[in-house]
């Protein structure tokens, strides 16, 4: 029925569209390839999710699970078995009809040993997929998995076509409202409205995703009118220039990116909770947000997205207090502080926050040595070899608090109590209960000050005034353009 609403909304908004246009969308990162079921690059979903590819279900702007290729579904009482009722008359861009077998194929492909799907774990719990009829498919899990529905809404679980699957990386073929035209590597990917789209037709003639790495050119391209919309404008500092310009609209939303001061709980002195708390006290979030993000970010007190219903505000747990911090250091046995390295990945937010953090910790006698590095170095040293003291990074995966349950993860947080909570969450099916458990989990890691919790990364949407229907939040990485249209005259 949600669909109906959508249709109504769209219909009601139909008259005020001047005429269909091809939208120039600016992205900072170019995807390495266009197959969302391969690598983990968020840049892939930026382009293809919801536009070229669709899953059984769709995550919408608010992070809710919506019907996708499956218009509705039933869940067995044990929470293990799912029956999906698929949409009819759906055609892949190569003309093949979409049926239950495609679902089976896609998921089996993702689970297979040779699969290079970054989120294989989504498909781990699947024990059986059987095609009941061309438009009905039943999936059985090893146990109840409340997050399963959400997960198969992710880009990694989109439905692909048997014949074209292997070429998706450079010639993606999906069921989405836009079909792939061409990819001028290093410059843009061109999409065109798919005439035979099964769902309500979209307003845009097509879309060009232009890749603009350089933050300066991001601004100039926008100002010079080369770009109609920058869904996630890379630099916050000159946002206000657009805000002051009536020709542009700035929408500041939230991403699923919890920006944290990642702390290596394995090594001294950070294995000492007192030290971690001291750091928590030493951090001045308002200064960080003001200085590094130019005010455009929301402070967080734990590893949880503020716009999630189960979110609780824990920013007050360790208010900025230098004396407290010094006290704790003293009692932890570091009266005159210590030295530590801070390894920073490339993104601007990390680099800037890093410099500020360094000076903030410096105030309580913790002498920080900044080491800037590229992603692969960071992944190599920090993520894989856990060879680091502190780092700053934004965890953009939605609902990823469970990473704290994995003691081999680079935080090195090993806490049975917390593991139990996550286990409960994963197995329990009752909504109320799960909400309680999530809050518990947030509290736990916040109190243990596993990491320094800084702020939720903002999504800075900048587009020409009159452009409607762009996502204002990033619950998952996607620039779903199905609802986008340009109001008034096309300049």
């Amino acid at each position, binding site marked *: 029925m949600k669909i109906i609403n959508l249709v109504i909304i769209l219909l009601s908004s139909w008259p005020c569209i001047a005429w269909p246009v091809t939208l120039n969308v600016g992205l900072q990162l170019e995807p390495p390839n266009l197959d969302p079921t391969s690598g983990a690059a968020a840049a892939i979903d930026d382009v293809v999710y919801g536009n070229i590819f669709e899953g059984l279900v769709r995550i919408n702007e608010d992070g809710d699970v919506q019907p996708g290729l499956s218009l509705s579904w039933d869940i067995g009482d044990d929470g293990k078995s799912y029956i999906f009722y698929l949409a009819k008359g759906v055609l892949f861009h190569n003309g093949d009809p979409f049926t239950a077998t495609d679902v089976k194929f896609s998921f089996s492909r993702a689970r297979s040993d*040779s699969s290079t799907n970054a989120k294989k774990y989504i498909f781990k719990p699947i024990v059986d997929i059987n095609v009941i009829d061309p438009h009905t498919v039943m999936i059985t899990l090893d146990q109840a998995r409340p997050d399963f529905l959400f997960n198969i809404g992710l880009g990694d679980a989109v439905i692909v076509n048997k014949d074209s699957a292997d070429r998706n*990386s450079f010639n993606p073929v999906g069921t989405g409202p836009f079909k792939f035209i061409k990819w001028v*590597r290093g410059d843009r990917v061109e999409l065109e409205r798919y005439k035979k789209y099964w769902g309500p037709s979209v307003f845009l003639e097509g879309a060009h995703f232009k890749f603009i790495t350089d933050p300066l050119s991001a601004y100039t391209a926008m100002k010079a009118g080369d770009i109609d919309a920058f869904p996630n404008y890379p630099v916050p500092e000159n946002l206000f220039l657009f805000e002051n310009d009536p020709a542009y609209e700035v929408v500041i939303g939230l991403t699923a990116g919890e920006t944290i001061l990642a702390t290596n709980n394995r090594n001294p002195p950070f294995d000492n909770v007192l030290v971690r708390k001291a750091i928590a006290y030493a951090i001045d979030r308002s200064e960080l947000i003001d200085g590094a993000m130019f005010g455009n970010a929301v402070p967080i007190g734990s590893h949880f997205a503020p716009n999630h219903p189960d979110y609780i505000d824990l920013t007050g747990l360790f208010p900025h207090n230098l004396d407290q911090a010094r006290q704790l250091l003293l009692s932890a046995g570091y009266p005159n502080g210590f030295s530590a390295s801070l390894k920073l990945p490339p993104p601007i937010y990390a680099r800037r926050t890093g410099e500020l953090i360094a000076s903030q910790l410096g105030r309580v006698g913790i002498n920080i040595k900044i080491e800037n590095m590229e992603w*692969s170095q960071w992944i190599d040293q920090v993520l894989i070899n856990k060879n680091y003291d502190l780092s700053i990074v934004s965890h953009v995966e939605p609902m990823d608090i469970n990473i704290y349950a994995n003691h081999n993860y680079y935080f090195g947080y090993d806490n049975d109590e917390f593991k139990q909570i996550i286990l409960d969450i994963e197995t329990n099916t009752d909504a109320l209960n799960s909400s309680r458990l999530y809050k518990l989990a947030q509290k736990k890691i916040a109190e243990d000050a596993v990491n320094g919790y800084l702020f939720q990364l903002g999504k800075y949407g900048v587009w020409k005034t009159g452009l409607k229907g762009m996502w204002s939040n990033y619950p998952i990485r996607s620039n779903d353009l199905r609802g986008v249209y340009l109001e008034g005259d096309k300049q």
Partner: protein
Amino acid sequence: MISFLLKKITSLIITLLVSTGVIFILIEVVPGDPVAFMMGLSGSTDAADALRLELGLNVGPWDRYFDWVSGMVNGNFGISYTYRVPVVELIRERALVSVPLTIYALLLSTVIAIPAGLISATRRGSLVDTSFMGFAQLGVAIPNFWFAILLVLFFSTTLKLFSASGFPGWDAGFFICLKALTLPAISLALPQAAILSRVMRSSVLDVMNEDYIRTARAKGLSKKQALFRHGLRNAMIPVLTILGLQFSFLLAGGIIIESVFSLPGLGRLVFQSIIQRDLIVVKSIVTLLVFSVVTITFIVDLLYAAVDPRLREGNS
């Protein structure tokens, strides 16, 4: 002539072979795993292993080296790890931007520099000379990326004459592309032009002191005639060298400019590839760049021979 050619060619080949070795070793020691990069912060390990297998990263360095070199010899540079398309194709696409850009920049700089150098040489010590050389000094001193930024600010955001960034692709039409390449070309050309004009000036001055110019003047040629009929070709020899160097420099040196204008050029590709540890691409491009440099110096040598009969007989 033949021996001259042979000598050049052999040294060319040797340089290339050695360079492939150096490059390979260099790349081998670069830490960071392309697969890990592609898998991101929460990639599952067995998927990573599968990918490693798929990319053929599980074999030893020697095998990889020989596969690589033998592959290159018959034009197969392998498949890009990240883009999953033949490296040759990638390079072709990018070269279609970088090479024209380079040539464009080179043309600009020559068109500016040669006359400027000539004029200031002939009008040595005059106001024109001093002002030209002043500009040259300035041109050498301005970092090109910095100049590029100023250009963008002025022409794109203020005057809105040129689009700030991006490259439409040649199928969009020649002049549109030319327009897109203009600002980058200018910002690349300026320092080169500055250098070139200085070289041109000094070499013309040197030539004008040659005895054969005096002979020519004794024939009754005016100073200018003597310079143009007998001086120029001699003066061009050092200029040729610089031009050769500049071509290869520009071809590789575009990295920063390309990213300032976000042009899909070789420079940015290789930069990206280094970041993404798409090492097979890095290897190939670096090799290609080295190759281009070597061949260009080779061509320059041939040009010398074409200009200078003494070299043609190889007795020099």
